[in-house]
């Protein structure tokens, strides 16, 4: 185990595994949940609901001006056109990066995140360091992510404290004009849709630890 995950635990993972097992045992016994429901929810967020969804939204917006217009006017409805909706995405607002404004999203109070388009948040998004620092020193934090923005670009931090869920529409990189929508999708990284990276034409992210 490495990286942001290894914050000290109050209980060990063995303790937590035991408590989780005990809880599952009681909830199944009481008829409140079934084993296959738990399996299906885990599988859904491991396999189906992840940042590939958001990448499809971004690529569509890059190639289809009418779609982009709908996306900016009503993010929730426009992502639903591609089949993405539901928990933690009841009201999706898309923030467009431009040559003069770079948007980046945080949740200082907990870890709110637009699940239908980005899946579950990475550990660093939930870390105390990111939650505490981004609103106060966004340029410094972005530099740690490998993104050094010139001072003529406004860095606009969005603290996600209400039921609105924000997703960043990154700029389409120069040199991708010849690419089709399906070729653009793999260039769009999760971090670019949070705002801690930009999209590069070669698909190589600025962030060393991008997944």
């Amino acid at each position, binding site marked *: *185990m490495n*990286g942001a*995950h290894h*914050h000290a635990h*109050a*209980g060990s*993972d063995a303790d*937590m*595994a*035991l*408590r*989780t*097992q*005990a*809880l599952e045992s009681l909830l199944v016994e009481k008829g*409140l*949940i*079934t084993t*296959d*429901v*738990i399996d*299906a*929810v*885990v599988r*859904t*967020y*491991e396999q189906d609901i*992840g940042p590939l969804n958001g990448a499809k939204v971004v690529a569509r917006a890059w190639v289809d001006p009418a779609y982009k217009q709908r996306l900016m006017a009503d993010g929730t409805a426009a992502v639903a056109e591609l089949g993405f909706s*539901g*928990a933690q995405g*009841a*009201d999706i*607002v898309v923030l467009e990066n431009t040559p003069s404004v770079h948007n980046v999203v945080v949740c*200082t*109070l*907990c870890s709110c995140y637009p699940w239908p388009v980005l899946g*579950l948040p*990475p*550990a*660093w998004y*939930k870390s*105390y*360091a990111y*939650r*505490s*620092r981004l*609103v*106060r020193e966004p*340029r410094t*934090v972005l530099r740690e992510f490998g993104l050094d923005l010139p001072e*003529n*670009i406004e860095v*606009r*931090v*969005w*603290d*996600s*404290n*209400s039921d609105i869920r924000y997703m960043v529409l990154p700029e389409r990189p120069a040199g991708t004009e010849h690419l089709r929508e399906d070729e653009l999708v793999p260039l769009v990284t999760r971090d670019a849709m949070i705002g801690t990276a930009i999209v590069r034409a070669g698909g190589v992210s600025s962030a060393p630890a991008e*997944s």
Partner: protein
Amino acid sequence: MNGIHDMGGMHGFGPVEREANEPVFHHEWEGRAFAMRVVTPVPIPGGARNNIETMEPLRYLRSSYYEKWLHARVKGLIDSGVLTAAELQAREALYRGRPDTPVPHCEDPERVQAVLANLRKHRSPRREVDAQPRFAIGDVVRVRNLHPHGHTRLPRYVRGKRGVVTRFYGFQDVQDAQPSGAAAEPQAVYAVRFAALELWGDAAEANSTVCIDMWESYLEPLEEQSQ
């Protein structure tokens, strides 16, 4: 509440550590705790976030994300009378003493379909009300200096600060804790933009701003300004 969870602007947490090729869940228990938190059909009295925010501060800091979720779920089940702490402890003792004891297994494909459909169902937070928003885009506002005891969506670092209304998000339910028995009317919600200088003074970084959503009762007018 002015809790440990209200972290915006704090110092001392070090660099943002990232993990290459991070899995969605790092341990099997995390996925199962997540699923039980999200789809167990028993509401959490006071809300999951309140259960997390009222954790003893040192425990909050030492607990991982899914540990907090598991805590919120368990406390919610105990508070709603679905299970008791003793029951859970006894079951933990059983599995600790005899790890081979099987976990009860039950399948219900119809329920799986219903749960998955429900997870993808759209529920707008916007409410139709017969009211007008008090503020308009471009208005300069000041955040009220509020310090409620219960759950609030108003972080400390913006209280008392001046900002500009930049977006209107319709009327939404109030998420702040209400006095018991009281029901709050939906309120207008706005995105309000603050200059870094207003929030952080001399420590502000160049050309940066923070936008945060504000329920109308968090705000008071400063002056009207067309923009």
